[in-house]
């Protein structure tokens, strides 16, 4: 008998036995929906962890101009100047809101930025100390150039490179003025800062960077201070008495980081580095930010960068670097007010430590999320098996209930294998239809979970294919036994069931 005919017979039988059909399908649907949702949650979590690892800068390397390792405990030279207050008119418990009002002197005492807090102990030099050019007031320390950055771009394993010049600046729009951080960057910055979202517009383009155009991207805090709720894209703000066209507004997509006044990322403006150099008449950089393609080769790339820059800067053997290569792990190791001597000894061993830490951390995270996915998958598998047993149960019941039907078919000439095929096709149809419905529901649930609960989910074509395949397999596996039973019903059986 043709498979098509068998299938038609099965479909008709399913339509006749609606309750059986519905019950069996529900079991399968729930099973597959669970599998899909579980896998979506599992791989979503895995992707989220990897994302967080990268967002946390595990693959980040920063090359800073100058070498200040041993000066870290020195108070900045300009601390006093920055901290000037007027004690008579300024009760100390009233801080400025940061918006400049003519004649207001307490402005400088506000918490503009950690770097400008006169009482903070800086682990890096402030802007005055950094720029090698006259504008920044410091001589020979700044050594990095755009050409250095371009050379780093050619190192194997390097993913993105961005030049960096960091200054403080007044940004003005209409009557509003806001004192904030200014970053001169490359177009690749949004890719380095993975946790950015653009609430309006986008980043400046490569072409705008090449042409040193006066365009600016606002951090969400700056946008809020200057424009309130309005869309700033296309408007013109003023810095250094120069007009800048607003290209976009960035905010944080990372639930761990929410933009706050005074932070370095969102209370900041971003301008093409070339524009900054041109306007401020600078030729050097404060730093270069690099990401590597994988977390594992941060150490190797750091070393390559060191070698490259030493060569480019013609630094003789045994002479200290005129720059500093910092990776995230190294930063973590030496952060938190460690003593200078201790720091030095840690740094001496950092290369090895860093490698171990990063690679192990990466592996541990991978293993943890793999375990989680496996756990979720096994829960899902159990629910599929339960669904399958449900199918078997109902099919077995239905065989008993349909003995008369089977007998009638046998009496008019159905062979045992025709009956077997009919029941098998019924359970396969049920499980596949249930499976498809389950896939749809799984999609919907995953979407719901990611939208409403803000959990990350990821549905891969593989997991859909897997669910579909598994549901068909369950149909065959758990449908075979009842179908076999059905085919063994004797032709005379129907005559006894009247």
């Amino acid at each position: 008998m043709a498979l098509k005919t068998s299938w038609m017979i099965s479909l008709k039988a399913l339509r006749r036995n609606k309750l059986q059909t519905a019950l069996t399908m529900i079991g399968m649907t729930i099973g597959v929906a669970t599998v899909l949702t579980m896998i979506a949650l599992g791989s979503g979590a895995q992707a989220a962890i990897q994302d967080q690892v990268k967002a946390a800068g595990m693959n980040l390397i920063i090359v800073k101009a100058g070498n200040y390792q041993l000066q870290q405990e020195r108070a900045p030279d300009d601390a006093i100047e920055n901290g000037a207050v007027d004690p008579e008119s300024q009760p100390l418990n009233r801080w400025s809101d940061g918006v400049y009002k003519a004649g207001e002197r307490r402005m400088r005492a506000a918490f503009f930025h950690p770097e400008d807090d006169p009482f903070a102990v800086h682990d890096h030099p402030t802007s005055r100390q950094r720029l090698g050019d006259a504008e920044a007031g410091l001589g020979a320390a700044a050594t990095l150039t755009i050409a250095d950055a371009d050379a780093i771009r050619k190192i194997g394993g390097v993913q993105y490179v961005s030049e960096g010049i960091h200054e403080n600046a007044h940004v003005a729009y209409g009557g509003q003025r806001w004192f904030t951080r200014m970053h001169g960057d490359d177009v690749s910055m949004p890719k380095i800062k993975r946790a950015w979202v653009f609430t309006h517009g986008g980043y400046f383009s490569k072409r705008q960077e090449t042409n040193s155009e006066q365009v600016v991207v606002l951090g969400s805090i700056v946008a809020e201070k200057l424009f309130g709720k309005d869309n700033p894209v296309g408007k013109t703000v003023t810095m250094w008495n120069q007009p800048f066209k607003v290209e976009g507004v960035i905010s944080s997509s990372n639930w761990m980081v929410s933009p706050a006044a005074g932070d370095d990322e969102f209370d900041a403006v971003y301008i093409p580095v070339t524009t900054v150099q041109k306007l401020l008449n600078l030729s050097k950089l404060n730093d270069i930010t690099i990401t590597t393609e994988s977390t594992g080769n941060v150490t190797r790339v750091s070393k390559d960068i060191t070698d490259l820059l030493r060569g480019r800067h013609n630094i003789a053997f045994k002479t200290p670097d005129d720059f500093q290569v910092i990776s995230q792990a190294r930063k973590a190791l030496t952060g938190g007010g460690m003593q200078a001597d201790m720091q030095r000894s840690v740094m001496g061993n950092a290369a090895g430590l860093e490698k171990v830490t990063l690679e192990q951390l990466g592996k541990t995270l991978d293993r943890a999320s793999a375990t989680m996915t496996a756990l979720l998958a096994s829960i899902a598998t159990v629910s599929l098996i339960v669904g399958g047993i449900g199918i078997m149960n109902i099919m077995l019941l239905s065989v008993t209930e349909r003995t008369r039907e089977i007998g009638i078919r046998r009496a008019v000439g159905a062979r045992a294998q025709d009956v077997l095929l009919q029941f098998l096709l019924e359970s396969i149809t049920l499980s596949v239809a249930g499976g498809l419905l389950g896939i749809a529901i799984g999609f919907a649930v995953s979407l719901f979970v990611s939208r409403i609960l803000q959990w990350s989910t990821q549905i891969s074509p593989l997991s859909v294919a897997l669910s579909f395949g598994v549901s068909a397999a369950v149909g065959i596996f758990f449908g075979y036994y009842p179908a076999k039973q059905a085919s063994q019903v004797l032709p005379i059986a129907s005559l006894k069931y009247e």
Partner: protein
Amino acid sequence: MTTTPVISIRNLTKTYQMGEVAVHALRSVSLDINAGEFVTVIGPSGSGKSTLMHILGCLDQPTSGQYLLNGKDVSHLSDDEVSSVRNSKIGFVFQGFNLLTRTSALENVELPLLYSGTPVSASERRSRAMAALESVGLGSRHEHHTNQLSGGQQQRVAIARALLNNPSILLADEPTGNLDSRTSVEVMDIFQSLKEERGITIVLITHEHDVAAYGSRIVAFKDGVIVSDELNEQRRAARNELADLPVPVAETA
């Protein structure tokens, strides 16, 4: 007569083993039925009539003995071969109609064609089933589901189904057992006209003498053996009886 009988059974026995007790449903039964005969089998309850019919219909196998259908031994065929014999050579009509529930009359009638050895197209299935339904006077009811039909109509659907593959024999086990007297006569009329007009061989089982009287030959059973086997001289004619019966009000088929 030199033609081979349609049905030829020799020393057929059927014994059911019920634990310690052996139930002898058939004890060495021999019988020849020729083409075009309308044989009615009569006997008290438990005499082995249905057992005989199941074996004749290849629904069951004898414990011993020989069964030739159209001269071919079918008592020791494989299950698949027996299925194909049932499909092409035998038509069944049962007391309980044995139709598929929640299924239209037409689809019920089509059923044997789904299992025939050579594939039959859907349109041909439909047209043949329609023709069979029309031949039993139910053409207008083909869309009706079995539960929307009266007992007599259901039995006519079952007859249409039994006739679909032009079987050599039509086996009927108490076909009028669940019907009132008028519909019984109508059904018997169909059987009689099938014999007269299409020459179909019919074996009909009943335990009522007045039903047996419609046959051309009456075989009487008792305790698994044939006690009498004779041609029926005073054959009842259902067609004539129907003409005499008052026409029922509700019948609009």
